[in-house]
């Protein structure tokens, strides 16, 4: 693990209260509820408009915050005049680096490592001042009235030029972030020497912005010296941690609530400076403050998938044996230290069997917003390079692309000292996916394409997500009340993946109740036990074993009470539909509400802790995706006709939400591959020219195929955890863009090596290759 990810997703090392592996219950055999197709338990709230997202919250006496951000890519702030702003109607507080406020001007966090209002703004969108007012309109009037004195400084906005000797320095240390990272195994020269075919190619993926539908934002309120933050976040404990540390408060005094949240994709694993600003404005005014970023602000200041530059050289024997990979990658951290090249080489290191591998990664500062983890950091970019290269290798040796991949399936993690995988479903993904797609027939059909200017093509790509095992710490409570009704209490956020529904299904599986009847309290540092943030495809594999443990703990206690009361052996009892049922005589079933001992206690509390992952093994999800496209060779328009996605993510917990994750991953991959690109005005101002959803282009309903098929490789992974589940959220988006590029190649004979494959790029590439119509 490298960079910030480990801190954002989970905690390394042993966790004392986790049970030893041999103390856990047996894995599930047959399941009744888990694995079925179930609509969400909070569906009513989501479609009726009653689900309250942080940006929906309205508190009595609430003010609205707004932030003045630096309009320059690099500038020194020599002064901020807030006099006019302070006198404007409705304005209740103005903060800047030039107003006396210790908390506001101190370096506020080791995490973000800068002052809240930094005197040197290193990217467009750094915070300069902030306002709280009675209405958001008034707050923005005041922001417009603040006069900041900027000394504009030279900038560099392209990481490909940032290491030039004459490039302006983003940070005093220079523009390289730390040292270049090296990885190697085997003998790379020997590997290339034994290859029959060697190919090399450069690739690039453009910078993507997360832009979840709900902008980043929060509502903050003080009660005495205690602060409550309603934050649109993937992890309430991450927010609590940073806010408390930044404001010098004990954790116990910072309560963070994040019940509903409108998407994150990695951009909401951490708070923003806006969270601290809102907290300080609320403190200053003694009133609650809502501060929701504008869409433009979210494009500048709350993360991105950094642009990636990759060079890959690969060697293969005629029989399909991979002999060597040499890979050099670089990426943009942004103006501060962030994961500009996080996991950018992981697929090359570990997806296919290859004894000789050398990689080199360089992280680079530029004057632009810092990167943040973005759905499978590094992986889709690396896939863009690796999977196109695999296709080219297959063609060079005259082998089917699926066949070449099947030849090189690893059973152990080469990049983790050869530790075996708990399960490797890559073969099943490739075979089942190809079958569902009709791969061979489709390839034959596109090869026989006529000479019209509309060309069809098919492509595919394999993938693994290097994480997705989950792990401790995590503690969950399951409470059974005297009437038999059940409450599930967990710290995890449901970021839209269906976590609440899956966990209610786990409870239902063990306690024999209807999942919809399970009352859920979650994502609240004030009322739940600790959970890591929902990210890294680790929520289901972390939470579902923990919830299962807690439910089993409650069940054990209930059955023990019942056994005593019914004077039978507890082992002969089961729970079904709110009743204790003796296995040998179901007519003697007794409702939980009729258990005298439960009525006396009023409540049974089951506690579950997440057990550790197996020490000597590695757990990863695998995938293969297949697609068909139509390319208009006169206009460069690419129409995606269909997608088939086969995924091994261990046990499928809820078939409906699982499929939704897969389709969502494909849609996001289409964005990376075909439409999305941050554009900075590199030669003039360094400013982002497309900081809105018209010019920064997300796929619409007309850009994705309605014909998507999800092929779950539903093989439980009992060694991974007691739910047998691995993550699905991130692997679903890793191979998509590369599969598209391979399909475009199949259609036209032209490789699109730089994203996005929009008409702009495709028509140019076709023409350059003499393949335009």
């Amino acid at each position, binding site marked *: 693990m490298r960079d910030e990810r480990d801190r954002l997703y989970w905690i390394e090392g042993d966790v004392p209260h986790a049970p030893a592996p041999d103390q856990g219950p047996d894995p599930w055999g047959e399941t009744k509820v888990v694995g079925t197709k179930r609509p969400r338990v909070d569906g009513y709230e989501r479609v009726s408009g009653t689900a309250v997202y942080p940006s929906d919250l309205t508190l009595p006496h609430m003010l609205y915050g*707004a932030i003045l951000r630096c*309009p320059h890519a690099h500038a020194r702030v020599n002064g901020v005049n807030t006099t006019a702003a302070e006198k404007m109607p409705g304005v209740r507080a103005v903060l800047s680096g030039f107003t006396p406020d210790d908390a506001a001007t101190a370096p506020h966090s080791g995490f973000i490592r800068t002052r809240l209002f930094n005197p040197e703004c290193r990217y467009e969108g750094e915070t300069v001042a902030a306002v709280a007012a009675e209405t*958001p*309109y008034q*707050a*923005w*009037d005041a922001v*417009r009235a603040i006069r900041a004195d900027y000394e504009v400084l030279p900038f560099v906005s392209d990481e490909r030029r940032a290491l030039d000797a004459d490039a302006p320095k983003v940070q005093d240390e220079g523009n390289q972030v730390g040292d270049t990272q090296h990885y190697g195994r085997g003998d790379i020269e020997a590997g290339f020497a034994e290859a029959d075919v060697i190919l090399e190619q450069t690739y690039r993926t453009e910078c993507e912005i997360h832009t979840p539908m709900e902008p980043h934002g929060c509502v903050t309120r003080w009660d005495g010296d205690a602060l409550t933050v309603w934050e649109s976040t993937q992890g309430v404990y991450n927010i609590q941690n940073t806010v408390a540390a930044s404001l010098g408060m004990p954790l116990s005094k910072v309560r963070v609530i994040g019940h509903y949240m409108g998407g994150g994709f990695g951009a909401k694993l951490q708070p923003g400076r806006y969270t601290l600003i809102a907290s300080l404005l609320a403190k200053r005014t003694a009133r609650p403050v809502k501060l929701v970023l504008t869409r433009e602000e979210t494009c500048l200041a709350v993360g991105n998938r950094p642009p990636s530059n990759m060079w890959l050289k690969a060697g293969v024997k005629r029989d399909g044996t991979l002999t060597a990979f040499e890979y050099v990658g670089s990426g943009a951290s942004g103006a501060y230290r962030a994961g500009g090249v996080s996991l950018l080489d992981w697929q090359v290191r570990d997806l296919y069997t290859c004894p000789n591998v050398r990689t080199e990664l360089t992280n680079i500062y530029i004057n632009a917003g810092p990167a943040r983890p973005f759905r499978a950091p590094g992986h889709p970019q690396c896939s863009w390079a690796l999977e196109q290269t695999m296709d080219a290798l297959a063609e060079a040796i005259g082998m089917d692309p699926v066949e070449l991949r099947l030849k090189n399936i690893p059973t152990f993690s080469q990049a983790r000292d050869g530790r075996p995988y708990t399960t490797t479903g890559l073969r099943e993904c490739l075979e089942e996916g190809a079958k569902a797609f009709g791969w061979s027939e489709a390839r034959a059909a596109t090869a026989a394409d006529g000479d019209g*200017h509309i060309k069809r093509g098919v492509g595919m790509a394999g993938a693994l997500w290097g994480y997705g095992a989950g792990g401790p710490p995590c503690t969950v409570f399951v409470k059974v009340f005297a009437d038999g009704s059940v409450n599930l209490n967990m710290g995890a956020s449901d970021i839209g993946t269906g976590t609440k529904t899956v966990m209610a299904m786990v409870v239902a599986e063990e306690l024999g109740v209807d999942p919809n009847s399970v009352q859920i309290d979650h994502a609240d540092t004030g009322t739940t036990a600790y959970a890591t943030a929902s990210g890294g495809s680790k929520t289901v594999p972390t939470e579902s074993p923990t919830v299962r443990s807690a439910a089993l703990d409650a069940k054990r206690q209930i059955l023990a009470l019942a056994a005593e009361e019914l004077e039978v052996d507890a082992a002969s009892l089961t729970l079904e539909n709110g009743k204790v049922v003796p296995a040998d005589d179901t007519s003697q079933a007794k409702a939980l509400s009729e258990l005298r001992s439960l009525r006396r206690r009023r409540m049974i509390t089951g506690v579950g802790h997440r057990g550790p992952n197996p020490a000597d093994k590695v757990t990863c999800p695998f995938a293969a995706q297949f697609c068909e496209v139509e390319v*208009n*060779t*006169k*206009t*460069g*328009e690419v129409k995606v006709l269909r997608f088939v996605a086969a995924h091994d993510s261990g046990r499928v917990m809820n078939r409906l939400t699982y499929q939704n994750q897969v389709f969502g991953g494909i849609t996001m991959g289409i964005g990376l591959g075909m*439409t999305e690109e941050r*554009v*900075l*005005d*590199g*030669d*003039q*101002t360094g*400013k982002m*020219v*497309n*900081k809105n959803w*018209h*010019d920064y*282009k997300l*796929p*619409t*309903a*007309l*850009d994705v195929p309605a014909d998507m098929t999800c092929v779950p490789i539903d093989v439980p992974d009992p060694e991974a955890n007691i739910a047998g589940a691995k993550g699905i959220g991130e692997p679903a988006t890793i191979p998509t863009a590369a599969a598209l590029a391979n399909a475009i190649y199949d259609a036209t004979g032209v490789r699109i090596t730089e994203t996005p494959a*929009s*008409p*702009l*790029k495709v*028509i*140019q590439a076709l*023409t350059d290759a003499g393949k*335009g*119509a």
Partner: protein
Amino acid sequence: MLPQFSYVRATSLDEALQHLGTDDARLCAGGSDLIGCLRDEVFECSKVVSLSGIEQLKGIDRIGHAGVRIGALTSIAEVASDPLVNRGFTALAQAAAAVASPQLRNQGTIGGNICQKPRCWYYRGEFHCLRKGGTTCYALAGENHFHAVLGGARCYFVHPSDTAPALIALGASARVTGSQGTRLVPMEEFYVPPSTDPQRETVLEPDELVSEITLPAPAPGLRSSYRKVRARGSWDFSLAGVALALQFDGDRVVAGRVVLSGAAPIPWRSAEAEAAITGQRLDETTARGAAEAAMQDAVALKRNGYKILLFKGVIEEELLKLTQV
């Protein structure tokens, strides 16, 4: 969050015109372009004059035998689905259907669509560019992926309207009403290129507005179409688009107009392409020749050379499609 302004909802054209001459008043027809401009602070505006209460500006009627009058406040969605428009003026129906997104077609009006302010990320962004009274066109040396390959001079945006090229192709006129009376302006003469005035888009005087569009009856044998290549299936403006209105006699083109969208700061009528097909049998050779001719004077900026390729492809493709109608 929008800055402050006052608001009046005019109940008659006269009332609207009275307000129009005052302060920094701006007209609000559907409002989809105006609200965006106000939000991006593209121009000053102290008063919004709403036309939404003026019923006489709405609706589509037949004029004469087969001509059509479209009130300026008629929504784009209505234009796209109107039977009269679809029957005789395919290019306009297709252009209207290609505008923005369904919701914006429900809000936006035909009058507003032809009077849109430029869509250039510098003009709409925080750049004090030439068109906003500054001294520089940032697009010229900047990120000009979506900028002009024809007709640029000092300013290089491309005109955003889809309906305007179709209207020009179909020989439509705009009825312009002002305090001094009304005049009929052929759509072809409605736009002002930056070589004439880089801070003005149309011939409208400050106290004038477009009250209706008139379309003459289609000539016998007229076939028309509009298509744009776009980066996404919705919302997006034209990367390269073409409105065609060709009068056929058998397989020969006897007259016709070829008008490009996404090419120039005004909807760009290509005399070269028209000359290449007029009097000719339309086949692959003539279509390709016309496409080449349309681009013969095109000049690529740093990042928009692809547009020339796109135009050649889409013009050829659409010309050939029209032979199969």
